[in-house]
């Protein structure tokens, strides 16, 4: 049996470890919000960057829109491929080898450092195919990174929510594809949407895949896919490492954090409604 002092020691140690981690976590959020909120103004949110060097004055509006465009597009690429491949694994593949191959590609891609997608994207799209740095190239590079992010989650969702229904549906003499469209996808829609939204948030915060494939120091809001764009995380990176403006860096970090947290809260709230709440879009009100 342990001595009382030793027991007390263990308890104190665990409390200290726990408190320090929680404090650091809280501290990070509070610090960004505190430092950033003082920079935020309407002009910071709604104007383009200006000043000499550029970024010392004005705002980050083009970067906000650019980040959203890029996140949406990359999220779309990643989700379409990821969910499609997951459906293939769970429902349509009859060969173990093919299933394993896709599974391996999920794990391989998920293990790659984000810079690899920048490196490959830059080499293939910009060098090899001679494309210009653009929203499209950056979104493709980031989208590749999101394939396993969505795919692994989608596979789990479809397995858990779809498989029990598929056998039942097959017993009614109904084709698998019909069952997937009419039954499985509607049932797992919210969860698949959540996975895609989280992927979008993840893509929005990434710098490594887009720093040489599409993001630039200054650009207007892109009107076409083949134009370069401004991105909040890249803008933040430049402001900090080039020492352009620490004040504006706080503001940019704040805006980026808020955008990502909004998506996270959105995802959590639909999860909440689905789990415990009464919110059921398919239930008619009497």
């Amino acid at each position, binding site marked *: *049996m*342990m001595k009382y002092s030793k*027991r007390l020691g*263990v308890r104190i*140690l*665990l*409390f200290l*470890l*726990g408190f*320090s*981690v*929680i404090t*650091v*976590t809280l501290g*990070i*959020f509070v*610090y*960004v919000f505190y430092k950033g909120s003082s920079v935020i103004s309407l002009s910071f949110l709604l104007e383009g960057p200006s000043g000499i060097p550029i970024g010392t004055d004005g705002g980050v509006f083009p970067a906000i829109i650019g980040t959203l465009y890029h996140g949406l597009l990359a999220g779309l690429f990643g989700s*379409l*491929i*990821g*969910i*499609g*491949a997951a*459906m*293939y694994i769970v429902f*349509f593949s009859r060969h173990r080898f093919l299933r394993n191959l*896709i599974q391996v*590609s999920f794990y*391989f*891609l998920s*293990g790659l*450092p*984000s*810079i*690899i997608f*920048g*490196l*490959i994207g*830059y*080499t293939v799209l910009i060098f090899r195919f001679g494309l210009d740095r653009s929203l499209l190239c950056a979104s493709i590079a980031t989208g*590749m990174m999101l394939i396993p992010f969505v795919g692994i989650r989608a596979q789990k969702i479809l397995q858990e929510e779809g498989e029990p229904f598929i056998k039942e549906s097959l017993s009614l003499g109904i*084709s698998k*594809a*019909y069952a997937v*469209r009419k039954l499985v996808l509607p049932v797992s829609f919210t969860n698949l949407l959540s996975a895609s939204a989280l992927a979008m948030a993840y893509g929005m*915060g990434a*710098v*490594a895949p887009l720093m040489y494939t599409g993001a630039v120091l200054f650009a207007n809001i892109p009107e076409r896919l083949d134009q370069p764009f401004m991105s909040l*995380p*890249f803008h*933040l*990176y430049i402001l*900090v490492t080039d020492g352009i403006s620490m004040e504006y*860096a706080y503001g940019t*970090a704040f805006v980026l*954090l808020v955008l*990502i947290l909004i998506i*996270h809260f959105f995802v*959590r709230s639909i999860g909440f409604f689905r789990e415990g709440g009464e919110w059921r879009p398919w239930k008619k009100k009497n």
Partner: protein
Amino acid sequence: MRNDPIIKGWALLGAILAVFTMTMIVYYLIKSSLPAFLEIKGGLFDLNGEWRPRSANPSYNILPMILATLFVSFLAVAIALPFGIGTAMFLNFYVRRKTAAFFLSFIDMLAGLPSVIFGFLGLVLLVRWFETQLHMTTGECVLAAGILLAVMLLPYIVSTSYESIQKAEKRYMYASLAMGISKEHSIIKVILPAIRKSILASFMLAYGRALGETMAVMMVIGNSPIFPRLFGRAQTIPALTALELGSVEYGSLHLSALYAANVSLLVILFIVLGTGYLLQRKLKKYDEI
């Protein structure tokens, strides 16, 4: 629409593109790194060599960066593990379930933070602290990167170890408490040994993640291509790639050397991750903790 070519087509296309992406990346990694491996050979891993890709007499020694990557990541996991496991223990044994769930989801949100924000905070808080408190001329160093990276790994380690602690508690704790043994004694003598395998698994997985972290580490490590010391500058392979990629020429040996560096890192990374996954799968299969 009974046969639904759209759904089948979507699934098939997704499957093909996922596999294609992997194949393409592997192909380019091998093809682009091959010249460096063939031409530079041992020069890539030379204990006395240097990384001077732009000099008139260039040399491409990536060994310092590989060691720096391994070192920083190890430091990060070594710091994050005790804090993460301790926090999980604290939340599981000393905090009410609901409060614990709140803090867990809070810590979890940390995982959603972009790494560039971590890098930024590391620079303005950690690095500055090193400079003012430790009187270093420049606070950018391996230790700063290790600590920062440790914070980034925390959410992952806390959530995985919380899970296995809960499992271990369900399986062993009540028997132990029923014998009149104190909570703290059970934590040290029962729970901690019970979860040692899953700790090893999450160590591997966390280490694998740390090896690939790019932006945050790059912003605080100082980026000198030299052998790493705890309080000195160094450079990791992802950071090296991110910094120099913009100024390389297509087809140059420099680009190929960057590829070779990444391929070397990936070999290590996938060995680490693979071991972690296998271990985790084995634990799950035999319903161990």
